[in-house]
């Protein structure tokens, strides 16, 4: 059992924040993680920047481009995170695209994640089938949870398959969109959340894409285990003049306290 499982058993209305490693500055990673933990965020997704992020909208795209210009790479990210567990207790998930991971070497990558204390991975362009055939034993031996996405278009049969193979949570994409392009929660989406709830899945769900404020956070918490905020947080980082204070205020504003 890793930190994610413990968290999902103990707590509801989870708030997870995504940020791109190396943005706004190369060495902000640990500062941002500490500020998020101090602000009471439940877990964090650290984005591994990629040159061609297919599932991301303009905000995360440009943060990735900036991070790469700043010199971020997997090697540097792992160096930054080497001693992260001395100060950070909350679960940590790495999110990114498959090509840099392949180039690093999947086995070396997983070994590094285990060594550092990473709890989960979200690799949107690693299809379930390939994961299942080639990488599942590797992930499981290192107790690293591979997190699958479901969308409003995913058929029930496939949702049940992904549910069965999930070991922490399912990432429920709130609508047909890339990240950061839609906001608010429509009746259409609520129908989708209800439809998923009626499936009685074993795996808890986190809703992501389009969650940007207290209203959307509270709304989706009625239908899922919690919410993931990405692009709205990146926008904050872009403008921030004082990371610690601004991050604390941002998290408070989402939580509504």
């Amino acid at each position, binding site marked *: 059992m890793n930190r994610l499982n413990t968290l999902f058993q103990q707590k509801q209305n989870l708030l997870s924040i995504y940020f791109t490693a190396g943005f706004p500055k190369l060495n902000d990673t640990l500062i941002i993680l500490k500020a998020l933990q101090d602000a009471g965020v439940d877990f964090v997704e650290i984005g591994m920047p*990629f*040159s*061609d992020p*297919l*599932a991301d*909208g303009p905000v995360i*795209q440009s943060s990735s*481009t900036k991070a*790469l210009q700043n010199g971020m*790479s*997997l*090697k540097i990210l792992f160096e930054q995170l080497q001693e992260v567990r001395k100060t950070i207790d909350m679960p940590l998930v790495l999110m990114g*695209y*498959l*090509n*840099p*991971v*392949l*180039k*690093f070497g999947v086995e070396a990558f997983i070994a590094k994640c285990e060594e550092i204390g990473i709890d989960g991975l979200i690799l*949107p*362009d*690693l*299809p*379930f*089938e*390939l994961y299942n055939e080639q990488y599942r034993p590797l992930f499981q031996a290192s107790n690293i949870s591979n997190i*699958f*996405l*479901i*969308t409003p*278009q*995913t*058929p029930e049969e*496939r949702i049940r398959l992904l549910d069965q193979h999930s070991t922490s949570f399912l990432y429920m*994409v709130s609508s*047909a*969109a*890339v990240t950061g*392009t839609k906001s608010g929660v429509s009746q259409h989406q609520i129908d989708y959340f209800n439809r998923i709830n009626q499936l009685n899945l074993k795996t808890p769900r986190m809703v992501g894409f389009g969650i940007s404020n207290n209203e959307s956070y509270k709304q989706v918490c009625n239908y899922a285990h919690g919410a993931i905020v990405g692009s709205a947080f990146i926008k904050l980082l872009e403008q921030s003049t004082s990371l610690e204070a601004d991050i604390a205020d941002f998290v408070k504003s989402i939580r509504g306290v």
Partner: protein
Amino acid sequence: MYQPNEKGFYGNFGGAFIPEMLIPNIEELKSKYLKIITSESFQKEYHRLLNDYAGRPSPLFKAERLSSKYGANIWLKREDLNHTGSHKLNNTIGQILLAKEMGRQRIIAETGAGQHGVATATVCALMGLNCVVYMGETDMERQAPNVARMRMLGAEVIPAKSGNRTLKDATNEALRDWIANPTDTFYLIGSVVGPHPYPDMVARLQSVISAEIKQQLKEKTGTELPNYVIACVGGGSNAAGSFYHFLNDNQVNLIGTEAAGMGVDSGETAASMACGDLGIIHGSMTYLMQNEDGQITEPYSISAGLDYPGIGPLHAYLRDIGRATYIPVTDQQALDAVMELTRLEGIIPALESAHALATLGLLPFKTTDNVVVTVSGRGDKDMKTYMEHFKL
């Protein structure tokens, strides 16, 4: 042996490395495309349009003066005479019929040189379907006449503003559009790239090129097998179509030419075979140009249609098993070949096609050899570059 397996792999290359958001669309396409495109009614309508609308078969022309110069029988497969000016229409006619059969009303496409964008806008006008074309902002400038053509045909042309603002970036934007519009939209990919089943589907739709070459060469020489088939490769659709029906004929030498830009060692190149290694681009495992951290690097070629950091997985496989040979050709070699074909045969080729013509002097032909070069497109769209370069 040259068909992908059911997961879309040619050996180690291909597959469908796509986010979950695209899986329902790709699964639907995968389950339907072969049944539809091999059906009698599809084939009948596809060939009717190829003949009466595109103007096929395209001629196979014996280029006498080129033949004397290079000491072999040089045959030009005239895809430049296809309606809209390139081979691209062969594929868009097929895919638009498929999109209609699947009930999709909105068509999206990516384009580099604009040839595929024009071919897509053309069939959308023909069928009365909405058309959105993504094109890198850099390419919109260097291929302005094609942007105007697409707009005349009723397409909306959306500039891709990320990266170097070329074909790779346009393809990213088209994929993002498809993620955001999963139910009414058909993504009409222009080359043998992208997730399975696109590479196989586009290769099949372009294979009319090699089917015609076989028949025409037989009529003209008595033998259906040439000694060489030469075609340029960006993503690789005209080459895939030119090679397709010769793949099992091992005595036919298959030559692909990729864009070396300023040279394979210059860092300013699009030669993904010569300079790339294994990775994933646009949902496909193939050779691509990337740095040591697995970030895809920006390609460069004078030719917008070849300015792509990856290559179709079929070509990666053909190279790996030694069935085809890929030769890098620089901007300068291509420009020289443009002028040579123009002055020797009275044909102004596209910059892309000139990369194929540029290898004529590099191969060890015998005087009796039949050499087929696919002239994938005509040079009208490149006149701005030619005017500057040749000081016209």
